[in-house]
């Protein structure tokens, strides 16, 4: 399957399905059924078993024809994390049930992994799943769940055996977010708004058919999810001055009254760091495209967080009086991080999360030190201790 052939397939599909006249959802379903959704997936599950690198050919062709997309921002968790996990660890029945409405966006997914007591140490999670009749009853609290208030399904990891060491007693489930035991509360952030939720699980019933992978194998299954999360974060080409730096550089260019000689050098330090980070991401993208392992992804995320924090901190001080003001602390439910439209204060506050979300910078540094540089691991005191006996 090459690009020409793919392009021809899309065109043939478009001849039979006119996006201008067809119902949006019907169109997306038909696209899925034609194997033109995620082409690297197997036939009958929205794909053609084609190389992943050719996906842009298909997407560009659809976009050029003015076809509707599946609103990927809204279903990012489903696409990026739930789907690869279901594909790899799900039964045929599970794949058939979940993947199609996931891709079309009919069903939004969220991720119930992190807990107040299990952040960096995710494997320490305490949400309990107890076997009952032909299914499971789940009790616990999850946190930092984006899209929980819109989600139909959640991927969930819970502890099924507290007497085993922490990595061994975990099982992976799909949780029905409409279950009456699921309570979703917005988690307000320092920016004023709530991108995320807390999710309280009280006697939530999960049929055993909604278990992904074997009982006690949840940590291994979760690795598929987490690996895909990390891939999603790194890489990707942006133009020069495409990030925070562009905002500040343009402020500098357009407002001579704010400039001072000492700040110019500081701005240029940031400009250099931004450009170095951009080129590193570009090189990472090339590496991934040639199938080389991309540990540089950790470097990209690590540097990106630090840089955004530095730039936004600089921006506030450059602006002086304006930096003392904020745009809006109202509690709202945004989708995404609208950093370009919001105020410098919002950028400053929101960027603080960049070194915490999706793996803290400290955890990234550990990963780099141990997996890339081969330095000795931390002395582990919790490896062989039953979860229930761990200090917390």
């Amino acid at each position: 399957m090459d690009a020409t052939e793919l392009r021809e397939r899309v065109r043939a599909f478009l001849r039979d399905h006119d996006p201008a006249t067809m119902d949006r959802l019907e169109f997306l379903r038909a696209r899925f059924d034609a194997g033109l959704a995620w082409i690297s997936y197997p036939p009958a599950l929205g794909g053609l078993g084609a190389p992943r690198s050719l996906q842009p050919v298909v997407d560009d062709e659809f976009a050029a024809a003015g076809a509707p997309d599946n609103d990927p921002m809204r279903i990012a968790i489903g696409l990026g994390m739930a789907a690869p996990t279901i594909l790899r660890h799900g039964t045929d029945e599970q794949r058939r049930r979940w993947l199609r409405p996931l891709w079309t966006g009919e069903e939004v997914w969220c991720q119930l992994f992190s807990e107040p007591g299990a952040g960096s140490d995710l494997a320490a999670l305490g949400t309990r799943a107890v076997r009952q009749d032909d299914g499971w009853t789940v009790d616990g609290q999850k946190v930092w769940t984006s899209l929980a208030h819109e989600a139909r399904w959640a991927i969930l990891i819970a502890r099924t055996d507290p007497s085993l060491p922490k990595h061994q007693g975990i099982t992976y489930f799909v949780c029905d977010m409409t279950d009456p035991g699921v309570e979703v509360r917005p988690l307000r952030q320092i920016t004023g708004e709530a991108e995320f939720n807390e999710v309280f699980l009280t006697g939530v019933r999960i049929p055993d058919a909604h278990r992904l992978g074997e009982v006690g194998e949840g940590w291994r299954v979760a690795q598929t999810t987490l690996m895909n999360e990390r891939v999603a974060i790194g890489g990707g080409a942006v133009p020069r001055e495409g990030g925070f730096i562009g905002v500040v550089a343009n402020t500098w260019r357009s407002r001579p009254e704010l400039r001072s000689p000492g700040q110019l050098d500081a701005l240029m330090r940031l400009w250099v760091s931004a450009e170095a980070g951009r080129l590193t991401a570009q090189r990472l993208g090339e590496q991934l495209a040639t199938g080389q392992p991309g540990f540089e992804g950790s470097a990209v995320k690590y540097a990106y967080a630090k840089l955004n924090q530095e730039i936004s901190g600089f921006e506030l001080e450059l602006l002086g009086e304006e930096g003392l003001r904020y745009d809006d602390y109202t509690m709202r439910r945004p989708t995404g991080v609208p950093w370009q439209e919001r105020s410098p204060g919002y950028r400053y506050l929101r960027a603080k999360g960049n070194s915490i979300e999706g793996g803290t910078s400290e955890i990234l540094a550990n990963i780099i030190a141990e997996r890339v540089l081969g330095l000795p691991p931390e002395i582990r005191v919790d490896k062989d201790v039953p979860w229930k006996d761990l200090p917390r």
Partner: protein
Amino acid sequence: MTLLYSEVEEELRGAVRRLLTDRAPWTAVLKRTESDEPYDHALWRTLAAEIGTAALPVPEKLGGAGASWREAAVVAEELGRAVAPVPYLGAAMATAALLAIADDDLLRQVSAGERTAVLATPLSTGPGAAPPVSARVDGDTRVDGDTLTGAVTSVADALAADVLFVIAGDGLYAVEAAAATRTPVLSLDLTRRLADVSFEGVPARRLAGRDAVGPAWAAAWRAGAVLLASEQLGIAEWCLSTTVEYVKTRHQFGRPVGSFQALKHRLAELWVAVTQARAVARYAAGCLADGDPDLAVAASLAQAHCGPVAVRAAEECVQLHGGIAMTWEHPAHLYLKRAKSDAIALGTAERHRATLAGLVDIPS
């Protein structure tokens, strides 16, 4: 000049801290940020009048406490530690201006805590600036009093003031705060609110003439810079000690996260920076109290050093708490926002370094 704290200062600190612990715990401060009364007037009255902090830098013969700016700086430390919503900084700057122009009547009222005066200048006004003129006097100076017209933006503590001091072209004026139009601003730091203030033919009393404005402004600004450094020290100390306590109890990987050496070293480095900030802030307070000729250097040094330390402490506080500190219901953001606003208030560190260069003969 000693850089240590005296026993009297430690007693004063204790009294202020007890009051703040009782009346302004962070939960109350947070709640107030979204209330209709962003300043805690009752707390301020207790602090200013009963504990007598408003009188600290004022000589006894003018109704003051016979203490000095050193003690006032200790109060600022505690207020920073509590991100307390009281107009201490604005009031202290106004007091310094009054001391410079020797307006005894108003000084007595202010130091008794009866009235709160605030200098109506933008909070971001940096070092070395000429007095920021914000109004003009309408017509000629008249016997039955002047009126002012003008506007000034981003004034800290204006919402809590009874009297505003306004710098006009030919002098420093006092106007009744109620007579001015004070438009609240949504400030980054909700614990120190800003207001845009405008005057439309507002009756004004002339406090000082053209020649006295410069010295009065300089005195006010320097006192502000010195107290702000102590406030920043208090913020940094809170952030450091709160973070240290948190990492001792927060467990991950079966260990307190404070047992991880990378975190230990970062906190040790932060402690070094805070230790330096304490020496620097104490030196500045000493120079202000003594009228030391090195005051200009000490004030800009303190701002150049303590501002970034407070920001760094608040940023580390957020990072080392992890996700929980990114939430509205945790106190860290109150400190982060105050620290960052303070780093802009009275000029950024970069502006202070540039000023310092001129003061210590390091030419550009």
